[in-house]
């Protein structure tokens, strides 16, 4: 318990649009240990970004409604913190790398300033010192520091992503929320960025929530995996267990839709159908419609989390039967 850095309990987040309620996150539980790197995977719209933004409490105020839940960080429920105290955590102890580097930077401020701003904000230092450290951060992510005074439009997509990463790491956070940090990058840069994050993780002991669609990245980079589906975590366990012994039919489906060199199947098998409409979720298991192994009971009531081996839980009644 004590070595849990972050603990999310029963988190529920809805978005309100003009005439609909979008159930984006439904009763999520998630814990992250100090130094742990967890991969959060799932289809588009599964609620991954929403979870990350809830942790920092930066959901769009007008549309988003954090209905209930608790988010403990270093033992304190951040959802009850005053905004002032929360600001001391943001960018400092917890920081986020945003999904889209093209739009994440302020187009009319110098990139160096945007990094230095965070550093100056959380450390009681002079501006020159903050700028010097910002230069160091730029160098660290492989951008020559004489580009400090340039603007985002003078940078390529990959370089912008590095700036965003430098910004997120500037204050040595103990938790990094990396929302698809490599999606916008080409494969070589992807590898470099991951290497960079890995070395930081080792140097600073930072815990990471890595949101990604790329299971290859997860197996390389993460200690454990959480699979999100329609606003729920359907399977959670160590990388080793989940990759070698996946249990939830959705996770199985994800692996089935992954190309493998050693596969004898002539074609990939995508999961049939679509994720349920988040404005109108089924009352039973969210995966019922698409599940190849669905039973009648599945449509009636939502399944509970079941621990099938230590540290490996699934949200599926089949779990009781000890695997499919």
């Amino acid at each position, binding site marked *: 318990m004590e070595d849990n850095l972050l603990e999310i309990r029963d988190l529920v987040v809805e978005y309100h649009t003009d005439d609909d309620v979008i159930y984006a996150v439904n009763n999520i539980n998630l814990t992250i240990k100090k130094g742990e790197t967890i991969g959060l995977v799932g289809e588009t719209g599964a609620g991954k970004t929403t979870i990350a933004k809830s942790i920092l409490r*930066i959901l769009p105020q*007008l549309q988003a409604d954090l209905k209930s839940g608790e988010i403990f960080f270093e033992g304190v429920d951040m959802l009850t913190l005053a905004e002032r105290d929360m600001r001391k955590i943001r960018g400092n102890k917890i920081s986020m790398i945003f999904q889209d580097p093209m739009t994440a930077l302020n*187009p009319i401020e110098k990139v160096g300033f945007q990094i230095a701003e965070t550093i100056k904000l959380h450390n009681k230092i002079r501006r020159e010192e903050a700028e010097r450290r910002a230069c160091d951060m730029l160098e660290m992510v492989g951008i020559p520091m*004489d580009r400090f*005074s340039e603007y985002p439009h003078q940078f390529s997509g990959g370089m912008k992503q590095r700036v965003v990463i430098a*910004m997120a790491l500037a204050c040595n956070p103990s938790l990094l929320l990396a929302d698809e940090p490599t999606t916008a990058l080409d494969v070589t840069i992807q590898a470099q960025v991951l290497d960079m994050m890995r070395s930081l993780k080792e140097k600073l002991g930072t815990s990471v929530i890595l949101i990604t669609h790329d299971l290859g990245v997860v197996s390389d980079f993460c200690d454990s995996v959480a699979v999100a589906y329609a606003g729920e975590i359907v399977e959670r366990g160590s990388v080793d267990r989940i990759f070698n012994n996946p249990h939830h039919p959705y996770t199985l489906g994800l692996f089935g839709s992954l190309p493998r060199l050693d596969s004898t199947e002539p074609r990939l098998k995508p999961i049939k159908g679509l994720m349920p409409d988040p404005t109108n979720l089924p009352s039973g298991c969210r995966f019922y419609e698409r599940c190849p192994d669905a039973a009648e009971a599945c449509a009636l009531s939502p399944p509970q989390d079941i621990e099938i081996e230590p540290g490996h839980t699934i949200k599926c009644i089949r779990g009781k039967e000890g695997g499919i």
Partner: protein
Amino acid sequence: MLRYIGNRLLLLIPVLLGISLVVLVLIDITPGDPARMLLGAQATQQQVDDLREELGLNDPLPVRYVRFIWNVLHGDLGTSLMTKRPIVDEMLQRFPYTLMLVSLSIVLSVLLGIPIGIYASTHQNTWKDNTAMFLALFCVSMPSFWFALLMIRLFGVQLRWLPISGVATWKGWILPCIAMALGLTALIARQMRSDLLEVIRQDYITTARAKGLSEGKVIYRHGLKNAMIPVIMVIGGVFGSSLGGSLIAEVIYSIPGLGQYIMSGLNNRDYPVIQGGILILSTMFAIVILLVDVLFALVDPRIRSQYARKSKGRGKRVGDET
């Protein structure tokens, strides 16, 4: 940047040439004979013809055009038909009043409009926002002369707080400036609100929040500057329309400015006054638009980089700037 401003100033020349041509043609095709107006209905046709000849009105349009341009280049806008005074002198005397009226109302409307817009957008969809935007819509839709007359009645006639006409004392400026500023304030406030709402939804604002900046700093440091770009454009446009608005306000409040002069020129078909007046107003407007474009470049590095010379930009080190 300097070169860009130079280029833009050079471009002003053909624009002003074009405007003068249009004005000349318009005066030419509108019915009514300036010479007849000047001499009155009793004058004989002979007298009218003689005066037309004397004023050069019988020359073909191209000749008159070239003569007009030639004179303008020598700082001569001709003499008023009515007062017989050189137009340049008259305008120089009147120009400060118009400049004062227009700039006071613009400053007032910027100082009011921008905070109101910010306030409304940070309280989006609350009654405060709704009230502010309802009032703004009202002020945009009502003509400024209506406000002017209303205020004269209330503050000038009934309450007797302020003079109803003339700008002999500073108090005289209050009503005309407010009358002109109301609509402009509303325009700026509405633009500010919608731009800021648009900007606040952008990802980089979320990034700024995620850094731990206070909401005020997020709005002012990251939101406002980005939202200002369209607002600056509106302020430039507002300047143009307030030049037009000053015509009416100066007449209503008897301010001896350019607008009043041009209005009397229009009424009397004093065509040299009309020509000169429009030329001056359009020059002012063109200069304001140039200022707006320069401001754009100052605010937005993406626009600036289009003008910067290729070799520059790179290689700047930390500390060179800000």
